[in-house]
């Protein structure tokens, strides 16, 4: 796969391949690029931030409390779309436990009364 390293503003174009059981990163100009390339190739992860609707129509901003597998981002978003939460909500309140079986909670990032 091809991607751009995001570890610094250089933005080295990375070419990542697998031969045998070894992941080979090419195009980087420093060690951080190798680590990033291996991570992006083997198990890319992201923090997902989005919104949930409340019963009153207001929205509350939320995030995954930790990094989640990039592959399940849209499953997580679907889970968020289907709920209507009750107010008040405080920063850090758990909105969904163990979202999509990821072991990661969805937590509120804003307090709404």
């Amino acid at each position, binding site marked *: 796969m091809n*991607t*751009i*390293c*995001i570890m*610094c*503003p*250089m*933005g080295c174009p990375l070419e990542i391949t697998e031969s045998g059981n070894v992941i080979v990163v090419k195009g980087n*100009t420093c060690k951080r690029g190798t680590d990033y390339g291996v991570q992006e190739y083997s198990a890319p992860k*992201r*923090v997902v*931030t*989005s*919104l949930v*609707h409340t019963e009153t*129509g*207001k*929205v509350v*901003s939320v*995030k995954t409390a930790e990094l989640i597998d*990039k592959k399940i*981002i849209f499953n997580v*978003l679907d889970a968020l779309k289907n709920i209507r939460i009750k107010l008040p909500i405080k*920063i850090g309140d758990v909105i969904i436990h163990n979202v999509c079986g990821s072991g990661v909670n969805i937590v509120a*990032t*804003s*307090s709404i009364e």
Partner: protein
Amino acid sequence: MKYDVVIIGGGPAGMAAAISAYEQGSSVAVFERDTRLGGILNQCIHNGFGLHYFKEELTGPEYAERFRAKVKDSNIAVYLEAMVLTIDKENMTITAITPSCGFMEVEAGAIILAMGCRERTAGAINLTGTRPAGVYTAGMAQRLSNINGYMVGKKVVVLGSGDIGLIMARRMTFEGAEVKMVLELMPYSSGLKRNIVQCLDDYNIPLKYSYTVTRIVGRKRVEGIFIAPVDEKLRPFTDKEEYVECDTLLLSVGLIPENDLVSGMGIEMSPITAGAVVDENRQTSLKGIFSAGNVLHVHDLVDNVSAEGAIAGVAAAKYAKGELIEGKAYAAIAEKGVRYVLPQKVYSGAGKVKLYFRVGAVYKNARLIVASGGENVVTKKYMILSPGEMESVELDKSKINGDIVLSLEV
């Protein structure tokens, strides 16, 4: 009514300034036009804030809450839904209107401008065509989506690859919209690499460099747009126009410090930053009036905004007490490749001063040279410098023996 320090704007710069001034023992008032403190951070629900300031990655509302909580714990007076109307520089008073107090006149020992910036609009970039609904600045769309819970469109094109545009491309995708493409007039993006990868590449949204929108089509609602590549002078090749069907156009085409309140006051302004010319205390050319955050110069990291607010807060508190010591002044000047330096004036004395600067183009393997009185006092190597990333260099004040010049050696 009188306060030692009056702060106009309750975003990240204003909140940091307020807390720092308060910690100096000053009586402080913040005037904020929104219904709560936090400014634009409240609508920036994505993460990536605070890595430098808090050493952890927060979303915008979380970052804002850290400061809001500190303000709440203090005796800082906060006026919400407040509109500051005028500043009287001779008497050091401001007038404002708030729902709770009506019209009010407030005396100030020092004033800090922290009004932030606003987005350039379709008019600002001379966008032609019809004027239907569906053309938004990216930040406006962000507010409608993230604060009000509205979906602004279903088929979206983003013009401009600044960070807000990139973030909104992902946000709209998350809300179920089809983001067809992001167009960038320049051959490079002013947005962070991380945002290009995680907001566009992750969702297969194409980014077309050296492209612009030539016309908007649609009577009541946007029906589509014409796009075209541009030449090196940024003029579109009209014979290469193509039509893109969409119902929404988001503009992420630059930010302008919101200095309308002080226009005509006689504050010396920088034509490059569109903010005030300031000294290392972030004091403007008018004594007792300070400026910090995006109203001073547009930042890319809120962490730097908070740091700047804190500098202004401490200095304004000292000024109000008559304890601000300045020393001999020297100019800080940008040359060869460096677009601007801030502050534009530094003082001799003890300790260190941090100079923030931006470059004019992308430079690889460049050396920054800081000279004072014709002598090189600091050199710093960079693998890359880009216009989108503000850099800083620290200078030992004992080495200052003349005007300071920052230049690049490529």
